[in-house]
Structures are given as C-alpha cells and as structure tokens.
C-alpha cells in the first residue's frame, strides 16, 4: 500500500492504494464518487471518463498512483455551483440525450472536453470525437444533438422532437 494524494473536484483527497488500484476504483470505492462508471475492461466504452489536469482520460485505464498530485474532475462536479444543471447537462436533458444513464457521465465529461477544444463542432466532429464513448440506448442521435445545442448551435432542424 502506498498513499496517494490528489485534488478531486477541488478538494484534497488521499488514500492508501495498492499498485494495481485503478483511478476509477479509487474514485468509486475510496472517495464514494460512484458517478464514474465502469462498463468495459478494454478501455473502449468511455463510461469512466474523467478529467485529469483538464484533459479527458479513461479512469479505468490509469492507475491511482499515476494520478499522484493531479487535479481530477468527475461528473459529480459538473453541475453549476448552485446545484443546477450545467449548460451541457441541461442540453442532455432538453434533447433526451440519455436513457438508462450508465454511459452518461462519460458522455458529459467527453462533451465538456470537446467543447473546450472545439467550441462549435460540426455534427461529424462530434461523432468522431465520441469514438471512445459507447452508448447502447440512444442511437447517439440525441447525444450529438445535445452537444451541438450546448455549443450554442441551432439544432431545431435536426429531425425529431
């Protein structure tokens, strides 16, 4: 066991971990931040995406020990300070960009990373960016629409309610 220290959602966090402890396990099991989900073991589904030092990372494919000293942000810190939904979260609700909710935390974290580097992505850019986030419920239509809406684009001409 070694001790790791990092900043998670703006607060100092520490814990004793084994070498093999994944960042996702540390967040879920030691910090009780269960919003970060684990949907696969081959680093493909993206349900576990968090931000480490401002960049999207798959928390199931990073050791907790590697996050020593890092700034980690999870889905639990994505709402506005007053607890209301952020622009991206609100767009997901407004455009029905989620169903079962399991992939949703990773989708929101990836969407936030995308819009930071590309504030007005095209449909194609959104779809390509989501290569590492698998959703089984929505068929992606409303996720793509929500992300484009969150970027301030008019999505009213995209088919469907």
């Amino acid at each position: 066991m070694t001790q790791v220290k990092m900043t998670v959602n703006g607060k100092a966090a520490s814990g004793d971990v084994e070498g093999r402890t994944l960042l996702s396990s540390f967040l879920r099991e030691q910090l009780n931040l269960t919003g970060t989900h684990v949907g696969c073991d081959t680093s493909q589904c993206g349900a576990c995406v968090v931000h480490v030092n401002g960049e999207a990372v798959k928390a199931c494919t990073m050791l907790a020990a590697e996050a020593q000293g890092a700034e980690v942000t999870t889905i639990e810190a994505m709402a506005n300070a007053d607890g209301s939904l952020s622009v991206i979260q609100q767009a997901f609700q407004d455009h029905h960009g989620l169903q079962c909710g399991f992939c949703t935390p990773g989708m929101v974290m990836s969407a936030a990373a995308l819009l930071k580097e590309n504030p007005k992505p095209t449909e194609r850019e959104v779809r390509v960016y989501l290569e590492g986030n698998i959703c089984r419920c929505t068929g992606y239509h409303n996720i793509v629409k929500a992300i484009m809406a969150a970027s301030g684009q008019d999505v009213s001409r995209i088919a469907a309610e």
Partner: protein
Amino acid sequence: MPKDGGIGASSKRREDVRFLTGTGNYTEDININGQAHVFFLRSDVAHGTITSIDTSTAADMPGVVQIFTGADFEAVGGVPCGWQVTDKHGDPMQEPRHPVLAHGKVRHVGEPIAAVVAETLAQARDAAEAIEVDIAELPAVVNMRDALKDGAPKVHDDLTGNLCYDWGFVEENKEAVDQAFRDAAHVTKLELINNRLVANPMEPRVAVGDYARGTGDHTLYTTSQNPHVIRLLMGAFVLGIPEHKLRVVAPDVGGGFGTKIFHYQEEAFVTFAAKACNRAVKWTSSRSEAFMSDAHGRDHVSTIELALDKDNNFTALRTDTYANMGAYLSTFAPSVPTWLHGTLMAGNYKTPLIYVNVKAVFTNTVPVDAYRGAGRPEATYQLERVVDKAARELGVDPIALRRQNFITEFPYATPVAVEYDTGDYVATMDKLEEIGDFGGFEARRAESAKNGKLRGLGVNCYIEACGIAPSNLVGQLGARAGLFESATVRVNATGGLVVMTGSHSHGQGHETSFAQVVAEMIGIDESMIEIVHGDTANTPMGMGTYGSRSIAVGGSAMVRATEKIINKAKKIASHLLEASESDIELKDGAFSVAGTDKSVAWGDVTLAAYVPHNYPLEDIEPGLEETAFYDPSNFTYPSGAYSCEVEVDPETGKVSIERFCAADDFGNIINPMIVTGQVHGGLAQGIGQALLENCVYDDNGQLLSASYMDYAMPRADDLPFYDVDHSCQTPCTHNPLGVKGCGEAGAIGSPPAVVNAVVDALQRGGKDVTHIDMPLTPSRVWAAMQ
C-alpha cells in the same frame, strides 16, 4: 400547440437529473457493511467432464472466506426455464437441468465451475486461479446442423440428442401450404442467417446477496428488468425461499434489452452464499465475463420460400429455421423462435397459407434468449428479405409489390393464430415515401456515383406483437407464468400520489411518462406524482419490462387503479358537496357538481380521506389507495415502414448509412420525445446487427468475439441522424390508453432495410449479388462483389 404536460406532451425526464449529476443508484453502487466479493472460476473449454476439483490451496489464500463448487448446490434446484414448448408431435420439449455451478460436466466456455468468496474481488480472483480443476475435454458441437447429425457429441448425456424440439406451426396447414407451392406461378427462396448477438447493455450485470440471520430475511439487489419474476423463479424453483422472506431489488439499471430479464445462476449464488457465509456477497461482472455469461440473442439459420400467383399475389409462405438454444434453456428461450416468431410470419401481408417449422438445438455455447425484439426481428428479416428478393426476380417495384399484398381490413385474423386489431400499412408507407423523399433518390445516387460510391435504397415493412400478453393464452402456449401487470396508486393526505408499478424502468423513462398519464386523468401537475418501481418490498407483484409491454400492460394497470381512486374520490366529493355521486365531475384537479358552481379541490378530498371527520364512514373506508391488476385481452400490433439509403465503397466494401427513415404506428403516444428516443435506440441496434455486430465461436466452441476488441458495437460515427415519424396512429382497441408499445420497433424493422439497401446498391452497380448474410462487414461486401 404541443402540450406542456399530461398525455401527448414531451415532458422532460425527471430521472435525468440524477443520471446527469452522477447520483444514480445502480446495483454496483450498493455496498453493504461487511460484504464479501465473489469471483467465478469459469470453464475455458466448451465441453468436458470435470474429473476433479481441488480447492485446498485456494482455501488458504489471503482473504478467502469460502469456496463453493457444484457439489454444494446438489440439494437445491436448477435454474428453471419459464416456457415449455410442445413439439409438432404433441410432446414436450427436452429440458435439461441447469445447475447453479457446473456439476459433472461443463457445457460452454464461461460456465461457472467454482466460486470463491473473499474479502476483496482481487483476492477472490487470486484464489480462483489456485483452484486445480481437471477437465477431460470432449468434442464440442457448435454448428446447429452438425449437432443434429447422427453420432454428434451430446451436450446433455441424459437427453435423447441435441434437438430440444421440432415445432410445426400450423401443423394442420402444412399440406395445403405444400400444395400452394406446387401451384405457384413463381417461388422465391432464400437461405439466410440471423446473426448471433450480445445484448451489451452498458452496465454489466451485478448481484448483491444479503441475509439477516435474526429474521431469516434474504435480500437480493440485482440488475434486473423484472425483480418479481426473479423472486418467484429463484425463490420457488432454485433456493426454496418463500416470497415473503425474499426481497428482490432492481434499483437504477443501466439498460437491459432483454438480457436482464432472465434469472441467472449468479443471482442464486449470491443469495445462497450470503446465508452460507452469513455476510453480504457481491458479484460484479466484468465486460469480458458478460460476453460469456449474459444470454446471447438471435442465432437462427433459416430457409424461407414465398409462393406467388401470376398476378404477384402472395399465395403461401414456408419457412424452416434452426434456432440455437445454447447449452441450457435460458428463462424464455423456447418461446422466442416459436410463439414470438412463428406468429409474426404473416407480417403486413394477406398471405393466406403459412407453415413455420423450427428446430431448436442445443450446442456448446452460451444460452440464447430474448434480445430486443425477440423472435419478431427474425421473422421480419426473413419475410422482408424474401419479399424484396421476389420483387427483384419479378422485375417489379419492391414497394408496389408490398402495397399490392398489404392487409387493409381490420381486425384481421392471420393464418398464424393472431388477430391484428388495428393498423394502416398504406398510411405508414405513404408517410415513409414522403419523409424519405424517394423522388430525389436518383439525384442522390448520381451524386454518390460522382464520388465513386454505389448508392442503394432499401425499404421494408414490419409488424410486431407487443404488450405481452393474455395470461390464459400464453398459458396454453406453454408459459409457466402469467403476463398481467399491476399498479398500486397511493394518494397521500395532501394530494400527492405515489404509483407503485410492477413494470421496471431501465432507460425507458417510466418515471416521467407514467406520471403524465395519471396527471392527465386527475388534472393535476405531473410533479405531484411519484413513480416507484423495482423493489418487491414496496410494489405489487408484476411481471416486469420486456416485449414493449410497459405502457400497454403496466400503464393500463395504472389507469385501472387510478380509475378506482377517482371513483372513490368522487364518492367522498359527493359527500362533501352534498350532491349525488352521479353528478360529480372531475376536471383540472377539482370535483364539481354538474350544472352548478359548487366544487371541491382535489386536495380537500384527499385530506378528507385521511382526516375523515366529515366523511361517509358508514359507506366507504377512509384512505385513498387502490391496486389493480391488468391482464390484456390481446397483443398489441405496432407496425411501420422503414427505408435506408446506403453508400457502398466498391474498393473496400465499406457500407455507410446515408439516410434512415422510420414511419411507425404506435397507436396513441404518451411522450413523443421518449417514443422517438426509443426508436432511435432500436434503429442503432438493428443497424448494428446489420452492419457490425457478430458473436462468433470457432469450431471448438471458443468465443472469438469475446470483448469490444472483436465485437463491434455501433459508435456515433457509424450512424446518421434518423428521420423518425409516428404521426400515423391507429389506436389499440383493447387497452384503455389505445397504446401499442414502441421499445422494439426500431430493432425489428431496421435490419432488412439495411440489407435490402446494400443489395440494391450492388445490383444498381452491376454486381450480381442477391444476398449477403449479416453483418455486412466491409470484408463480406467486398467478397460478395468479387
């Protein structure tokens, strides 16, 4: 003007807030004080005799609590099958015992052999590796036709062979069908494979067993679509726990798609082990484990023949299907290729004579059971592919051939035992032609050709049977359960309501749409209604969510219970208003006396029910809580017409979906936003089946597509925006909401549209290709073109 609440409004989903903020409560998020973890040692061979299991080294490993093997489960029951099919001779299907942990033999890769309970999952896995298992490997049987040959290895030594049943439907029609084929002007024949799929809800399965020694109460938290069904099957048939001592909770569940209907060994194990170890036991599936332990879907090999007269009227249909059951019978497996498939073979057409034969086969593979659509996609795929092929052989327009043979009068009794109550197949096809802009196709094709791509247009129809189902009917067909649904509506003193439903929501948005129905009925705000589901301790016995049944059956139960509430509330109101009960009207959340300005608010009536000071106690009981059970009198029959436009890259064989249109008839609609989302998801799964997904075993029964590295899940960049329309509405005639269900349509209707489109593209491009089996991967399409 779109409504902003109640039936027909696109109300935003209330469940989204918790999911978007990371505060959902999935089974994996549940941790019980003192819980241990289990790791299952699973077979890495497809077929073999277990000659010895030595757990002595493993038992001494750090953190190990207890190790279990098949011998520990000899005294309890096997995992039961919930549907008994009778074969064409009138005999029951062959039904093997399905042990919780393998005993004597292993029959598929992934079958659990031993289970290690330890302090941590890592310790459990470490110890499992130290268990010494000797297995004398036997030849495996994977291919269904091989499995039925004389001398084939037997999956179950105590059965007469690998044939589970040989089903004929309708057996009495067989001779007439054969005669119609002899008389036909044209016969189109097609052999095809409905590829084996893995459902892959994004949340892997999890089960936590808990036991209270002081009271003898068991609790199982599990990722299930139907907690009451699990309680019944596991309690009564496997572990012998009476239902009043067993609580099953399915909290937030991250998608189901069928594969979370079934009762699995892992659920029985953690429940059993929690008592044996006297502490909570948790199992968390990895995705790799899910591939070899979740029931798979589809896997049919079929030959279909369509007979037409000289005027291109369909005169008869004949199909032969081999349906893979895998190594054991999963909960509803026998019903999928029979009653959920054969009864759908008429499709949208007035074909007068139909005969369906299905041979269900045991193989050394993971059990196969219902996956989104369950039987209906297999029927639709066969039918819509053979109709398309017939049109091409006859040189007629595929849409015109369909229109010519449409059923146009309702109710319509098919030759395969079901009666469609309503539908308008001409209207959905008209709508499809409108939204699909087929007139502009040639111009789009020319544009694709300029870029070196072959463009094709595929069209098909579908019919499905949802809202499963009348209990007395399914009982005759072999179901070992009723298929009613239930709801309890509890009105609180201050007017808010809690609806406890036997349905379960795992993405479908029941918490929102169910509340819309009750809000509409009473005329109050949706926010006054809470929908509770998923816990056998606080919901009435229900059969759960599958087969697009929730709103049609569960919603109807809720309507009935709410009607009872309203009737009783009117009695109270009539007392408060000193008027005759028959004069009381409920509108916008207030009771009034017809023709007067006298009224009393909803909240005053509900308060009176719980503070019955001025109350007709001699006539009615205090309180306002009602339960209803609803058993439907028929299936519902959603239908629609779909089109797909593809581009094929002739150099690589890669297919891209350029446009996908869906015109559905779901009857009345509660929440259009949610319905559209359900169609989107179904389309993605159907397109995934058609282009990407394939569960593949090698000849030795090793699973080759065992992770997302080899099983291609549809990604955002594989799919387009869809054009979805559900303005064609022929309400269901036999349920109070006039609803039909929408959950599976997309997955049922889309695969043939994709394949028809690719065949169209290749034929327009001058390639002599009449069929390619799904998935239409680049390599398969390229090979077909060579």
